[in-house]
């Protein structure tokens, strides 16, 4: 089942002489259980792609659909609700709110959604248990390691019914061992049914992906399907 679908997405910043094409006619799909890696040099449009995919930014043209819902047709409130219930973000660093402890950080999307505290806590505890950090629930972000912080961010991104995880350089601030752990975790979440769109500039992490997309100057320069069934990549 297709979880994320980008169709001829273009994002233009500025106007006239200052026009910058961050994305040009990008089309991409990600299905349930798939890990799609987006690679490319600095300024190639990787982060913009992620922002557009999650509805944090709107495309100038083209469509973005998450779990069948066309983001461009949604009202702001519904778009935000979609993000709360179906999409999780993980950034390079500073993912967690320092004033909230680990479990409260994981509870955040549910609390914003008005879910009862007890229910939110139960689901957050279960998400933490899945990544092996249940014992860290009461700690604050600055009391745990960088790798643990990223794991907590991943738990938050996939808490409850959330199935689409958008990760922007999640290993960028980690050493290689911790980075490998994070990739292993992301892979295992995909095996459990999640869909991950991973932006990275490290080629070795591409090996964990089912599909690798190369961006250059905002356009897809190449696309490789590494999945075991070898089905063709949908890219242009």
């Amino acid at each position, binding site marked *: 089942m297709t979880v994320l679908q980008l169709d001829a997405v273009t994002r233009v910043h500025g106007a006239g002489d200052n026009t910058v094409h961050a994305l040009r006619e990008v089309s991409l799909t990600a299905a349930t259980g798939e890990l799609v890696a987006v690679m490319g040099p600095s300024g190639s449009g990787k982060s*913009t792609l992620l922002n557009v995919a999650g509805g*944090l930014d709107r495309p100038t043209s083209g469509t973005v659909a998450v779990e069948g819902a066309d983001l461009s047709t949604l009202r702001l409130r519904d778009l935000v*609700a979609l*993000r709360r219930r179906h999409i999780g973000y993980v950034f390079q660093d500073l993912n967690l709110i320092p004033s909230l402890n680990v479990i409260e950080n994981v509870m955040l999307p549910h*609390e914003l959604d008005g879910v009862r505290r007890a229910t939110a806590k139960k689901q957050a505890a279960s998400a933490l248990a899945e990544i092996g950090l249940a014992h860290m629930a009461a700690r604050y972000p600055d009391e745990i390691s960088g790798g643990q912080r990223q794991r907590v961010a991943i738990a938050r991104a996939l808490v409850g019914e959330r199935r689409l995880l958008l990760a922007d350089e999640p290993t960028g601030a980690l050493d290689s061992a911790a980075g490998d752990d994070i990739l292993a975790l992301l892979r295992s979440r995909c095996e459990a049914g999640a869909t991950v769109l991973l932006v990275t500039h490290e080629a070795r992490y591409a090996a964990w992906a089912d599909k690798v997309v190369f961006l250059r100057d905002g356009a897809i320069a190449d696309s490789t399907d590494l999945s075991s069934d070898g089905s063709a990549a949908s890219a242009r």
Partner: protein
Amino acid sequence: MNGLLPVLRLSLRLSIRGIRRAKGRSALIAAMVGVPVMVFTAFFTIVTTADVSHEEGLPWTLGSADAKIFTRWYMQEGAARARPATAEELSPLLPPGSRLLRVDTANVPYRTDRWHAPIALLQVDFKDPLTRGMVRLTEGRMPTAAGEIAVSAQVVEAGARVGQDLTIGDSAAVKRVVGAVEGPPHTFLIAAPGGGVDGGRTDVSWLVDAPRPLLRHDLRNLDGHGFSAVSRAVAPASETPASGSLLWGSGNTSLAEHGPVGVLFGLTMSLIVVEVALLAGSAFMVGERRRRRELALVVAQGGEPRHVRTLMMADGLLLGALGSVLGAALGVALVFLLQPLIAAVYRPLGPFDVPWWDTATVIGLGVVSALLACLVPARRAARADTAAALAGRRIAPRSRRGLPVAGAALLVAGTAGAVAALWANGAVFLIGCLLVQLGLVLLAPTLVDLVGALSSRAPLPIRLAARDAVRHRGRTAPAVVAVTAAVAMTTAIGVSLSSTQARHERDYSPLQPLGAVVVEKAGHSREKWAEVGERLRMELRGVPLIEQSVLVSRAPGQPEHGAGSSIRIVGCAVPCVLLGGRLPVGNAALLRYLLGRNDHATSAALDAGKVIAFDPAVVRDGHVKLKRRGPTGAVDTITMPAVLAHPATGTVLKVLLPKSAANTLGLAVEPYAYVINPRDHAVGEEERQRLNAALLQVTYAGEVRIERGWPHTQTFSFALLTAAVTAVALAAALVAAGLARVDARPDIASLASVGATRRVRRLFTAGQAGIIVGSGAVVGVLLGLALGVAAYAMAARPPGRGVTSFVVSPDFGIDLPWLLLGGMVIVLPLAAMGVAALFTRAEEPLTRRLA
């Protein structure tokens, strides 16, 4: 409303932890809200505590009696007379079986190590159970014999001791202090019946023990027979403000009705709310800037703009509540602890009383101010570009250019309103000032642009600071407005005070030559007055003491309070200055004192029984005409020979009468004052204090005064105001500079990377503060000048005089306080720059790219 509670809970949790994490910033905002709340709460608590309500005062007045009937004083033929109240007269007016207990009250001075002003002396039989509750014995026993006395705590504080003697009354009776008591908040003494002192006025009142409560119709009946009474069963017709609420009040008073003080109070209060909203608003903006990524993360996790707004507003709610509650508690606690000091400085206090409604209102206002303050930062945060914040990209500030046309229109309308208040009242002035403030808020961004444009030739750090201020108008403008409003208010008050002062100085006509020493007789008895003269002569050792006398309205030997004659000088233009409204009488020494030189011819004329006139208008053909209205109302004119003299002392007295004139007019001569001619002996402040202390050994009312011209009295309160403005300006500068530093970290890093020294970086921050305070001060001074002139014209205009004729008349002189204005425009910005530079961390900032 779906899910509002969890979000609110989350917001409060985040806010509480955020407050704990940024303790300094939180304390600053809480203090901005809390300090004004503290001041207002303390003010209301003092006023409420000082006012003794009917219920609070009842036991002191009535003891355990049902009612108290008072002697009623009234005016008859210009003299105060008492309606004598005797038990025989009262009994038929009271329910049968009523019992009466007599209470005599006199006012007597008393002496410890010195004389003290008169206080109440209560003579009543305290063994009678009706007096139970009037006072509480704290030491010793109640007086039972004529030579015994009990004293209140205040008298003990003044030095009286149980077991020792105390001298009381003009007759200096000696009484043994046998007890100390606590009671109403006025200094008082208690004696047994017959234990009073001779002389002075005694009021008789009666405590009533009735078989039934005395109701309103009983009081009316007593009133009809010429007696006033207080009954336990009848509440007074009008309540004192203390038992109600000062803020909520009785609903029929408005600020404008309290005159200039009310206007000033209203202006200060509105200014404080505006300042809190502006300054705390800037501080909240710092918080918004610091929390930008955190808020973006919330949005990334599905937070809606309203969630972000709630998160930001929670800060305002918590810090506002924290600051307000702490401020109110501190205000109440301060008044509670400082009661003795307040009673000494302000006035005697009643039982400690907290005005709960007013306090709650002030706390509510504090919270509302804080919420208003974070409204704009909350809106900004909700609209922020999430993607840019998450990527750590610098977000271009929304360069609102303000609403210059609307701002200018409001400014003009407000100033016009303030000027129009001359023809209307204080409320219009207040509205005008508020419009001006609002206009300033809208105009400020344009002003900031102007400053930016002017800085193109300034040195690099200042130029950078100016450009940065322009780029971030949103944060610069509120700080500029805060400074402008504070400076404008000080300037307005300064101009108004200084002009009033100058006018008083111009108009002041000293009754005595400058430098003269004066001790006025006031209420002294003839014997006491002689004693005062004796003491002064002893202290001054050989310096001539001149006695100034006046003609009084009664004939020699007549009782003091009888109907008298009044005398008027024909041709004497108003104000016809005399001594205490009476004609001065004196000898050659007094004439020399008034003239400031020896003038043998004039002196001989005075000796020969001629009137000495100092005003040519009162002399016609070598004579002065006096019009006398006798006790019966008959008017006759007396003509006396006179000579004109030209005093060198600038005395404003119109005439000096020879002693023989008293016989001619058939009136008695009374001493008015002792004076020392400055040509005989100049007295300095030290000697004045020595003389004062010596006189307090003899009398309580013999104050030694030196004629120094118009007294400058408002310096202290004005200095306090200036200090407050300086604090506001510095706070504005620091908050704005702090905000600028957060914004400018990448710029400072770039500066450091191209080799800028610490000095340049410090100058950059100092420049930010200088631009804010400097531009705010210049505009504030200009605005304050206009408002100050209007305020002065409003306060100084004599009643019944047309505005236009007053403003164009020579009486309307504006005096500019140059020192203050210079200080505001030059010293204040420099001080702000210095403070900002001092508080700047000049270490090299490290910036990093987040994504």
